[in-house]
C-alpha cells in the first residue's frame, strides 16, 4: 500500500520539522503589507508594460485604431449635447457644452476604470493561475490604462473649451493636481471593486446601475444648482460626493462662469485630497487582505 511515512527515514524528523529545519515556507502564504508593497514596486515595469499592452490591444481590431481614443469621448459628448442641450434646451448654465463635456469626461475616467476594474481579476485568470506576481499589479495597470485614455480625452476637452470661447488662465494649471488626486482615488476604488468582483462575478451585472445612479448624483448632465433644492442633509451629502468634488475642481480650473455647489475652494481641495488618501490606502489594504484568494475557485 501507500508509502505515506510521516517520519523521514534519513533524519527521523516529521514533515513539519523537516520543513522548518530547512526554512521552507507554507505555500501560498500572504506576505506582510510592507513586503507586499515592496514586491509591487519591483513590478512597476510590468504594470506599465501591461497597461500599454491593454491600450494597444483594445483597439487592435478597429480599422481606425488608436483614433478611437479621441473619437469615443467626442461622440459621447455629441450625443449628450443633442439630448440635454438641444432637445431639452438646458439654458440655465452659461457655456453648457463646456460644462457638460468637463463633467462627462471627468466622470467617465472613474466610470470606465471601475467597469474595467471589476473584471481585472476575472478576465486575467489565465495569467493569475500560471504566474506568481503581486495581484494588485492587474487593477493598478487598469487604472494606468484609463489614465492614458483620460489624457487623450483631455486634449479633446481643452479643444472644446477653447472653441466655446473660454480664456486661457493660470487656473488651468489646477487641472493637473485635480486629475492626479482623482487618479489616486480611482486606484483605490478599482482595487476595492477588483477584489469584490473576483469573489462575486455578479458584481459585473450590478455595476452599471451603481454607476448610473452615481452619475445623476454628481451633477454631470444638469446644473448643480438643482441640488440646492434638496433637503439640507442631502445637499451636504452631495457636496461630499468625491466625483462631484473632482468634477467641480476641473470646472473651476477650466471654466469662468460655471455654477459650483461648493462655494469654498479650500474645502473642495481638502475633501478631494481626503477622498484620495482614504480610498487609496483603504483600497490597497482591502485588496492585499484577499491576496491568496485570487485565481482560486
Amino acid at each position: 500500500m501507500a508509502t505515506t511515512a510521516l517520519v523521514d527515514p534519513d533524519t527521523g524528523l516529521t514533515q513539519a520539522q523537516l520543513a522548518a529545519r530547512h526554512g521552507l515556507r507554507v505555500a501560498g502564504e500572504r506576505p506582510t503589507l510592507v513586503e507586499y508593497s515592496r514586491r509591487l514596486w519591483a513590478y512597476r515595469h510590468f504594470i506599465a508594460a501591461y497597461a500599454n499592452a491593454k491600450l494597444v490591444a483594445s483597439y487592435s481590431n478597429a480599422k481606425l485604431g488608436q483614433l478611437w481614443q479621441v473619437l469615443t469621448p467626442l461622440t459621447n459628448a455629441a450625443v449628450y449635447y443633442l439630448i440635454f442641450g438641444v432637445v431639452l434646451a438646458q439654458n440655465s448654465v452659461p457655456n453648457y457644452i463646456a460644462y457638460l463635456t468637463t463633467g462627462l469626461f471627468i466622470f467617465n475616467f472613474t466610470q470606465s476604470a471601475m467597469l474595467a476594474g471589476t473584471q481585472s481579476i476575472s478576465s486575467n485568470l489565465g495569467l493569475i493561475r500560471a504566474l506568481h506576481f503581486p495581484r494588485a499589479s492587474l487593477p493598478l495597470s487598469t487604472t494606468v490604462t484609463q489614465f492614458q485614455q483620460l489624457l487623450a480625452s483631455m486634449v479633446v476637452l481643452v479643444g472644446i473649451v477653447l472653441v466655446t470661447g473660454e480664456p486661457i488662465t493660470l487656473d488651468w494649471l489646477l487641472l493637473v493636481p485635480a486629475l492626479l488626486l482623482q487618479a489616486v482615488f480611482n486606484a483605490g476604488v478599482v482595487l476595492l471593486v477588483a477584489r469584490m468582483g473576483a469573489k462575486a462575478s455578479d458584481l459585473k451585472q450590478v455595476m452599471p446601475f451603481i454607476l448610473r445612479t452615481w452619475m445623476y448624483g454628481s451633477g454631470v448632465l444638469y446644473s448643480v444648482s438643482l441640488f440646492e433644492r434638496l433637503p439640507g442633509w442631502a445637499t451636504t451629502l452631495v457636496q461630499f460626493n468625491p466625483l462631484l468634488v473632482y468634477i467641480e475642481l476641473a470646472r473651476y480650473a477650466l471654466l469662468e462662469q460655471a455654477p459650483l455647489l461648493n462655494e469654498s475652494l479650500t474645502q473642495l481641495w481638502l475633501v478631494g485630497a481626503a477622498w484620495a488618501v482614504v480610498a487609496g490606502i483603504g483600497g490597497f489594504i482591502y485588496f492585499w487582505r484577499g491576496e491568496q484568494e485570487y485565481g482560486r475557485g
Partner: protein
Amino acid sequence: MVEHMNAFDEATVSLPVLTERIPTVVVDDAHIIYRVHKGATGGTTPVAALRRLVKRTNAPNVREVHAVKGVSFTAYRGEAIGLIGSNGSGKSTLLRAIAGLLPVNRGAIHTQGQPSLLGVNAALLNDLSGERNVTLGCLAMGMHPDEVAKQAAGIIDFSGINERGDFASLPMRTYSSGMAARLRFSIAAAKKHDVLLIDEALATGDKGFRKRSEQRVRELREGAGTVFLVSHQLSSVRDTCERTIWLESGVLRMDGPTDEVIRAYEAYANSK
C-alpha cells in the same frame, strides 16, 4: 558548497550527514477540497445578483470536490518527479496547491521559494504580438527590463515560431494551438525556477520541439531545481524523471523509482 558549511554549523548537536539532501517541497498530510460552479441554473438577473451580494450567500449551484485525500511526500533539490494516475485522480490539483494557487483544507504544504506552475492553458494576451507577449511574460515572472531585452530573441528562437516566416510580430490569436503552447513553454522556461511544476505542457509541439524542451527540463534540474511533471504520456515521464508518484482518486498509491511505479501502474491500468 554553502549547504555543506551550513550542515557543518548545525553539526554541534548531531553528527552531520555529509550528503544531506535539501528538501524543496514538503507535503504533509494534505487534503484539498475545492468548489466548482456548475454554471447558471437560474437567478442570473441583476435583481437576484444584488440580493445575493447583500446577503453574502453563494450561488446555489456550487459543489464541493474532495480531490486530494491526505498525501505526504518530500521532494529534494535536483530531483525530477513524475506524477501519474488516471484522469481525475488529483494530479493537477496537487500541483496547483504546491504552486500556492489552491488552499489545503487540512495538513500543510511547505515550499522553498516560489514554485512556478507551467500549464498548457497559461494564456497571455491573444491580441498582442508574440514579441510583446514575451516581454510581458518575462516581466510578469519578475525579470528586470534589461534582462528581458537580452533574453527575448533567445526565447523566440527556442520556441521555433519563426520557422515558417515572421510570426513573432503577428498577434497570438493567429497562432496554431501548438505554436502558442510552444511560445508559452519557452517564456516560462526562460527563468531559473527553484521548483518548476509542469502540467502536460511537454505533450505539445512537434518532435523537434519536444526534444528541445526535454533538454531544457534537464538543464533546469541541473541548475539545482526540482521539477514536477504531470503527464499521461508514460514515455516522457520515463525519459525525464527518475522518481514517480502515483496518485489514484486523491490517494498516494506508490512513490518510488520510475520504472517500478510505472510497471505497477500499467499492471493496474490493464487489469481494469
